[in-house]
């Protein structure tokens, strides 16, 4: 009954049943262990050029909801699951997962032994590329091996033009490296008057808007591949206004301050790791989607201090600048999907802006 295959660059073939778009796609294969929130995951721009395997076996159990998308056009390259719910719309405007993916030209494959697949990905010890294909023949493998995935992920997903998201509170510039809506949602909740700028924005362009603070958004790919002028921008901005970096924004903040960032042999995507806040010694949980991590030993203790650590893999999850009101987290404090208990970081950012503002 198999009609679609997930093939991996190491030669492995997983047979399943296609859903969504019949297109052939290529991407890095990563897995996510979240138990719910498939819509938020597949629409997160962090999955540019990636095929996401869901460890939780049932997806598409709910229709898509208009107010929980994380981007307008998701750049994910494929969805792999054990079971796709047989969805029958009960309302007029309801769209099921398969139909949505079809509309977005994203292929999916179900009926996969995702547990075996995840074990395979872990055993490889390096990111594996894969392809979702109708026939798993030599040609398909040749195509896969010949495919070059861009290393300019940010340039592909970030907005090319500035746009405003006005409100009546603090003025915030969000630098878009692959912005997910959750960040804007959190800033909206706090009435921030937001302008989203392209990732290539210079410090001058940002400061021209006279922001109370700057957010470096999350996004896909390697921070090292983001052009060097971005690090220049960060080094300037952090001295001027409060700065919050998230995900890729955190990695760039670390790089800008002399730390090293390394590729994870197995990417980590989930919501369940205990993350220790060093100052309080408390544990929090948050949405994580990381392919790169800040090398703990490379952190220059004169510049930065570590604020959060993941207790499972011991990775740096948060940094704070010693001299400036600038900080960053590897995880997503905006959740969507995931726990809200770190959304207080946005409040911390708000407080910083108020404090700096009153200082004039």
């Amino acid at each position: 009954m198999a009609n679609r295959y997930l093939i991996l660059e190491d030669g492995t073939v997983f047979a399943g049943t296609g859903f969504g778009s019949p297109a052939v796609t290529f991407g890095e294969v990563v897995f996510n262990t979240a138990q719910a929130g498939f819509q938020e995951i597949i629409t997160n721009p962090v999955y540019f050029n990636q095929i996401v395997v869901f460890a939780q076996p049932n997806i598409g159990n709910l229709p898509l909801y208009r107010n929980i998308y994380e981007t307008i056009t998701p750049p994910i390259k494929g969805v792999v699951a054990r079971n796709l719910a047989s969805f029958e719309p009960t309302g007029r405007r309801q769209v099921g997962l398969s139909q949505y993916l079809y509309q977005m030209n994203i292929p999916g494959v179900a009926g996969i032994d995702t547990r075996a697949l995840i074990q395979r990905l872990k055993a490889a010890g390096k990111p594996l590329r894969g392809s979702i294909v109708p026939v798993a023949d030599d040609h398909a493998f040749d195509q896969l091996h010949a495919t070059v995935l861009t290393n300019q992920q940010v340039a592909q997903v970030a907005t090319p033009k500035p746009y405003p998201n006005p409100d009546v509170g603090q003025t915030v510039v969000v630098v878009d490296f692959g912005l997910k809506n959750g960040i804007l949602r959190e800033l909206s909740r706090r009435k921030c008057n937001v302008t989203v700028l392209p990732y290539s924005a210079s410090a001058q362009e940002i400061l021209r808007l006279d922001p109370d603070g700057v957010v470096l958004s999350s996004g896909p790919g390697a921070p090292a591949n983001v052009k060097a002028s971005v690090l220049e921008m960060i080094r300037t901005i952090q001295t001027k206004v409060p700065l919050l970096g998230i995900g890729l924004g955190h990695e760039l903040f670390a790089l800008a301050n002399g730390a090293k960032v390394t590729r994870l042999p197995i990417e980590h995507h989930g919501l369940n790791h205990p993350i220790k806040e060093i100052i309080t010694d408390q544990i929090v949980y948050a949405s994580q989607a990381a392919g790169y991590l800040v090398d703990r030993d490379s952190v220059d203790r004169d510049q930065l201090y570590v604020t959060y650590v993941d207790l499972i893999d011991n990775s740096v999850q948060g940094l704070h600048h010693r001299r400036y009101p600038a900080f960053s987290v590897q995880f997503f404090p905006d959740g969507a999907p995931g726990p809200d208990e770190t959304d207080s970081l946005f409040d911390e950012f708000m407080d910083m802006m108020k404090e700096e503002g009153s200082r004039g």
Partner: protein
Amino acid sequence: MSDPSEASKTVLIIGAGADSLQHEGELAASLIKVARALQRCGYRTHLIDDNPFNVAPDLTAGIDDFTQAPPTVEQVTAVIERVRPVALLPTVGGRLAMQVTERLATSGILNKYQVQVLGMPVTTVRQTNNPSVLNQTLRQVGANTKKIAPVATLADAQDLAAEIGFPIVVRAVAPVAGSFRRIVHDQADLQPAVTAAIQHSGIHQAMIQQSLAGLKEIEVVVARDQSGTMMQLAVAEDLDPIGIHAGDSVTVLPAQTLLDRQIQDMRDVAFKITRKLRVVGINHVQFALDQANDRFYVIKNSPYLDRLTTFVEQATGYPLARVHGNLVAGQLLRDLRLDHGLVKHTAAMEPVLDRTAIRLPVFANEQLGIGDRPLTTEKQSVGAVIGLGRSLVEALLKALSELHLDFFALREVADEQLDQLLIHPRANRLLAVLEALRRGYLLPELSELTRLDPFYLAQFKRLVGLERDLMQHPGDLTFLQQAKYWGMSDFLIGQIWQESAATVRQLRQDHQLHRTYKELDPSAGELDQHPAKFYSTFEQVNESQVGDRPRALVIGAGPRRLGNGVTTDYLLTRVAAELKRQGYDLVVIDNNPNSALLNRELASKCYLEPRDFERVAAVVALEQPEVIASADCSFVADFPLVRAGAATLIKLPPLALPTLKDGVTYQYNAFFDGRYAYPLGITRLTQASAGVTVDFAPDLPAGLGAALTKQGEEALTNDQPAGLYQLTAHRAAGQLVFDRLGQPPIWALAFLSRVTGLDLAAVIVRLALGKFNGRLLTAAMQGESKATRLTAVFPGPALRLQRPAQLSEMMGAALSED
């Protein structure tokens, strides 16, 4: 506590007492693990309980001291005065233990003897026992609760109803004769209901409360440590809506039809409540979710272990009970080191599943003659099974296979009657849903009738589709493959094909359609963890590796059923402990999430699988055990391994109860080694409509004991094989009439083991292994026999059944000494 100065301080653990409709073996099973954790933290553990089938005090690890007494205020006080514990643990004894703890606090006993309550402050114990006080606290943390208020006039009732919105529940406050309760759906019905309620009320008041019937029920389990760290262990969803008791509902883990946003909101509230109540350990919060407006209500908060927590433990592979023990002892989540193949720091990692788990209630309504009784807010089920699979359908089918239901039982039912069965659900309502799907009911329509989420109905529809495919293609390999992939048993496929299960099995084997086993690790495959618990599916990679040490397989007793209660589980657990002592690696297969057997301190490996021929045979074929122990799986004797003599079979006595006469009978109990009879004591069974009691070492009429013993010994001098025996006698016209010599029923073995202090399970095991010698018995028989009474517990009263007590309906028991 790891501080050595704390060493040997005693924690008094309050047991749950006799098993009832509200609880079965789950508390005993949890208790063993919690107590073991307390021991490892340097505490001495002292259990007070009168449940003869609580196996905890009979195992070598876990309980240091045991007081066999009902866990009442008086008895617990006596133990406190005698033992002077530093702390008391109320969280493994159900609601009863919480009530006892509150009264001990109120009476000043806890203060007087400086006994600390573990797991929560006394104020939280009070609030847990008093929902209206708790509701105030819940509102303080911003949680919605059911609106409820008393009214004295119709006008007030109308105002309140307008505020709450229909439907509402109208009750009489302090009713004078019997209770009065009515669901009111509109203004027109309000006046008569309120008037009647006020009339019924001793204080002329009616209670108006919001009805949450029909909303989705969500159960959230969280843990909190002393430092305030909190984590979520599970968000489970009940298939059946509010209005059906959560224990009678099919529960699914993880929740399948919730938005992440809804999960996070409930998690936040569960955390807030747990923090506010300063719970240390496990807290279980139940919510009613109104999906029309995302509003949710807290309907119950249980800061103790219960049937859901055992299900969560088995489904996730996370050692919940043990962690609870560590936390109440003051350890912190981040410092905890788990064993049994779990990675460092994973105690603080929130469990995630790459499988679907189902908890299916098991009813005895047919047996009790109440098969047509609708399910309500009062619990009716007597036991539960767990089903695990890589899809919801697979998990459900595996759970269902324990029940041996006829899937097509409602084939002949008329549409109107089927509608009634859908609207007013009864035990095993799923059969009605399947039948409706076969008849082409549309999902929205069916969802309206049943209040089941369309997602689940779509899953059941898949099952009906599989049935149809199989029916249309008898013997077809492709559809066989599909059916196995979605969890159908050989038996069910055979039923549809009108073939024997053996034929299906053969076809499957001919085409190498074999199952694989997946490990139940709590990280959904992210980490390399090996808790050595497995379930089967039909996928590519098998993860269950067989070791090279000799293995013994114990096939669990399955869900609690009436007649034996949890006694089979009790005895099998002791059999397992003995097999382990005999040097075997213990492998367990069971589908009762509440079983004491599913304990990694005992079993090297657990299979959470159905106990039918197909699944057991597969485990046996893989594990090649040298010993197989079972109570009710008669098919085991036919396994090639057993027939060839490669595996020794240990069979417990049959579950079937001996036909017992009403009135009083006497039993001579003995072990016979082939040459000599070793008496185990005489018991007197009194069966009356008011109750059933069994007395050990009772005062007997003159000469009766001697006559019974003489007859028993004579009966055992013949060519009887070695084993445990029971000779029953009754008196007729002043004469002692002897019945046939037989094996004692399982509950009697459990009872005798407890009262004689003699491990009869060990006797059975050693006998089967040819390692028996009389020393065990001689040593035990030195002790003095104390007169002890077992009082059986029946579901009748809780289910409001007017029926005489019958031993065949026993669900639990309490012991008392004269």
